[in-house]
C-alpha cells in the first residue's frame, strides 16, 4: 500500500451525502478526502485559488464562469457532477398563468441564482430579459414585465419560508427538497433538464488540472454506483449529469 494522498475539498451547505459516498470509495484507493464546509458561495472559490483547498464542488458552471472572470482566478472545472433543477413554487396558485398582476416573486439574492431564477421566469413566460442575458442576475436585466411583478430578493434559504407572503417563490433544488417540497410534483414550473449553465462542476486550480488524484476523484464521482446512489437518495430531485466538459463550454 502506498502513502495516502490528502485532498481538501470545499463544499457549501451541509449536504455531503454524495461526497461522503465518493470519499469512501476514494479512501480505498488511498485518497483521503477532507471535506470543508462553507455556508456561502464566495469563500470556497477564493480559498481554492489561494491554495487552501485542492478542489471544490458546490457551484454551477455558470456561477463559476462569472466568478473566475470577475476575480481573474485561474481555476478550471475537471468534471461535471449533477444538475438540480430550480423551480417556481406557490402555495396559492396551481399554474403560472394564475399569478396575478403585481404579485410578489421571492428570488434568491445571490447573483447567479438570481440570474437563473430570472431565466426561469422568462422561460415560464412571465417576463422578458434583455438581449444576450449573461446569466448574472440583477433586476435591471428585466426589460418586460407585463404583470408588473414585484421581485423580493433574499437569501436562498428563506425563499420557501416566505411562500405564504408571496405569489410564488423561486427555490433552489436542494433547498426545496430540504424544505419538504418535491420539485417534480410541487413546482408549478421547473427548469428543463438540459439547462447546461446550471450543471454543477468540480473545480481545481488550473495548474492542477492534470493532477492524477484530483482527476481520479472526478472519475469516482462519475461512476455508475454514484449515479445510482444519487438517484436513490434524491428521488430524482437531483439529477446526475455526467457530460464532457466541452458540453458546458470548457
Amino acid at each position: 500500500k502506498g502513502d495516502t494522498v490528502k485532498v481538501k475539498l470545499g463544499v457549501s451547505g451541509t449536504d455531503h451525502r454524495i461526497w461522503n459516498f465518493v470519499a469512501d470509495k476514494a479512501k480505498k484507493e488511498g485518497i483521503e478526502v477532507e471535506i470543508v464546509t462553507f455556508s456561502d458561495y464566495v469563500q470556497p472559490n477564493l480559498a481554492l485559488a489561494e491554495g487552501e483547498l485542492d478542489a471544490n464542488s458546490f457551484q454551477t458552471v455558470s456561477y463559476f464562469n462569472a466568478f473566475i472572470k470577475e476575480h481573474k482566478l485561474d481555476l478550471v472545472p475537471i468534471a461535471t457532477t449533477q444538475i438540480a433543477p430550480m423551480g417556481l413554487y406557490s402555495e396559492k396558485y396551481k399554474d403560472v398563468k394564475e399569478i396575478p398582476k403585481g404579485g410578489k416573486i421571492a428570488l434568491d439574492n445571490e447573483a447567479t441564482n438570481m440570474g437563473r431564477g430570472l431565466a426561469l421566469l422568462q422561460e415560464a413566460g412571465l417576463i422578458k430579459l434583455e438581449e444576450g442575458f449573461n446569466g448574472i442576475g440583477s433586476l435591471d436585466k428585466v426589460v418586460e414585465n407585463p404583470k408588473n411583478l414585484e421581485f423580493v430578493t433574499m437569501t436562498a434559504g428563506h425563499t420557501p419560508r416566505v411562500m405564504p407572503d408571496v405569489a410564488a417563490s423561486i427555490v433552489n433544488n436542494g433547498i426545496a427538497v430540504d424544505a419538504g417540497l418535491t420539485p417534480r410534483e410541487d413546482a408549478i414550473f421547473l427548469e428543463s433538464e438540459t439547462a447546461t449553465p446550471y450543471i454543477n462542476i468540480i473545480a481545481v486550480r488550473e495548474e492542477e488540472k492534470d493532477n492524477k488524484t484530483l482527476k481520479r476523484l472526478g472519475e469516482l464521482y462519475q461512476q455508475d454506483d454514484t449515479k445510482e446512489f444519487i438517484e436513490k437518495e434524491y428521488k430524482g430531485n437531483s439529477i446526475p449529469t455526467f457530460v464532457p466538459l466541452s458540453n458546458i463550454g470548457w
Partner: protein
Amino acid sequence: MLVNSDQIIKALVETLQMVAFSLLFSALIGIPLGIALVVTRKGHLLENPPFFNTLNGIINVLRSVPFIILLVAIIPITRFLVGTSIGTAAAVVPLVFYAGPYIARLVENSLLEVDHGVIEAAQAMGATPWQIVFRFILPEALSSLILAFTIATIGLIGASAMAGAIGGGGLGDLAITYGYQRFDTKTMLITVGILVVMVQGLQSAGNIAAKKIRRR
C-alpha cells in the same frame, strides 16, 4: 457600479426605517425589561426571585439563538404582527426580538451602577417603586443609558444588514448582495461609507449628550 443612486437612497431610507422603528420598539421592550431585571433581583425594591429567574431565563434564551434562526423561528409572530414576513416592516420584528433583550441587559448594567444612597433617599421620601425608578434611578443613570443606547443602536445597524436577508433591504443588504456577492467594490465602499458616517454621527451625538448629562 451595479447600483444607481436611487437604489442607494432607497436602501438608506430602508435602513433608517428599520433601525428607527426597531430601536423604538426594542427600547419600549428593553427598558422595562431591564428595569424589571434590576428591581426584582434579590435585595432590591421589588425582590421577586421567581419572576427574576423567569425573565432572566427568557432573555437568555432569546440572546442565545443565532439571529438568522431567530428570524425564522418568529416568522409566525412576524406574520401575525405585520401581516407578512418579508420587507422592511417585517424585518423590524426579528430586529426587536434581537435588540430588545440586548437592550434589557445594557439597561440592567447601567441601572445597577446607580448609587444606593439615592435610592435610600427616595425610599425615605415614601416614593413608590414606580417613582423611584422614574424619578431617581433612570435620571441618575441617564448618561450611562445614553451610551448604552448608542452601543445598541450601532449594533442594530449591524443586525439590520442581516435582516436584509429576508428582503428587508437596507444599506447593509446592498453592501452584502452587491459588494460581497457580486464583488462590486464601489457599491460596497459607498454603502459602507454611508454606514460609517451614520455610526460616527451617532456615536459623537451619544458622547456629547452623555458628557453633558454626566455631572462629574
